[in-house]
């Protein structure tokens, strides 16, 4: 049995839990709230401070989706979570430009952990005040080749598109590396 994982990250309240919940076949294991309400409990409790979803492919293959905790005080977990990941998704809260800087910061940190492909999902596009993916792309100063995708975490179809776009990027990169 092989397990692969992808990481869903992004600023506080960007919609990571919602995103994973939309496609996971199990109820997302939410561990964060418990910890925020009881901040005194330490170490072994915080190591599970993440969302966790699952998509079974067949008897031999399972995909896990890990959502990072949005709060900075858990960022020591990011590197552990990112280990061995196939790729990652940075969710951006499109209605809160005050979080763009944080999103960019998170993106840079994950890029420094691993050279795996990533996509950016401009979430909450259903809300009238949402910035467009094109504007967010410029605001985050990411390169032309970076995919910034429209997303509504509650809408399974857009979540699927984001995951698929990431997988296509992963495939392309594998292909390119083989051709070298």
């Amino acid at each position, binding site marked *: 049995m092989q397990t692969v994982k992808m990481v869903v990250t992004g600023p506080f309240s960007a919609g990571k839990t919602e995103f994973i919940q939309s496609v996971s076949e199990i109820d997302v294991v939410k561990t964060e709230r418990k910890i925020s309400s009881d901040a005194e409990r330490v170490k072994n409790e915080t190591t599970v401070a993440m969302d966790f979803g699952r*998509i079974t492919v067949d008897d031999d*293959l399972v995909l896990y989706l890990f959502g990072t905790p949005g709060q900075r005080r858990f960022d020591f977990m990011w590197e552990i979570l990112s280990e*061995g990941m196939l790729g990652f998704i940075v969710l951006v809260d499109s209605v809160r*430009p*005050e979080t763009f800087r944080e999103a960019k910061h998170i993106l840079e940190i994950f*890029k420094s952990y691993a050279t795996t492909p990533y996509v950016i999902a401009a979430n909450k596009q259903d809300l009238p005040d*949402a*910035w467009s993916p094109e504007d967010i792309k410029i605001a985050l100063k990411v390169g032309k080749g970076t995919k910034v995708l429209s997303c509504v975490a509650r809408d399974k179809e857009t979540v699927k598109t984001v995951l698929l776009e990431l997988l296509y990027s992963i*495939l392309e990169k594998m292909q390119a590396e083989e051709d070298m």
Partner: protein
Amino acid sequence: MALKGNLKDFSTTQLLNLVNLARKTGKLDVNQDGSSAYLYFKEGRLVHATNSSDGGHLMTMLVKMGKLSREQAGVANKKSASSSDKVVGKYLMDSKLVTREDIVQGVKDYMLEIVYDLFTWELGDFFFEQNSLPSGNRITMPLNLDNVILEGNRRVQESGRLQDELPDLGKIALKITDKPLRGVKLTQDDWRVISHIHPRNSVKQIAQNNKMDEFQVRKIVYGMLQAGLVEIIHPEGLEPKKQRRPVTRAGRRAASQTPAEKRSVVTKLIDRIKRI
């Protein structure tokens, strides 16, 4: 689709940069404590600017910029009696009150005054109204935003934001983008920085080479970054951390797979997700 927020989170520089890069057309409305600035853009260029107290009439602009006295304006106002600034402008020139150059310079200076002032606002709710242009009665003048952004940044004295945008100068280097430098008004200091750009030179070294202090070099680099003339890279020799040897079982297994096996895993995932 909206473009809304507050300058404390997304600065004037960042906004103008966005308008410039996305070649936007429309009106940017910024409001703070009841006073508003309005900037109009056409395909990424600033074409008109005014504020809530002035209203953007040609006569007001010329008086403010000292091209016309209040008395002259009062008389002209009665005589020309038109709401079109083009008619007013023609009248002013015909009656030899101002020259064409006065009008061009006056309007331009007025627009720049409004927009440069906006760079000093640390707060202010903004809203971008897509495709909204000034009334046909107003005079417009297209100004390239590259230079506006560079100059506007020279006037920003607030170092907190600079510190935020460019935290550790020893850990970043610069790369010149393929944006043409021709037509962009660079100062001598800008050129001094540019001449030291090299993948092995951190910004800190660039500052040292030029005997600039950190604040100085930050301001220059920030301005050039916002205008899209340079971008940040990792200095050579400070590459991102190599991925460590996987310690989990799944990680070790993935590392021992052949390329074909790895690709087949991804293809299976794609098929599965399509079926969700």
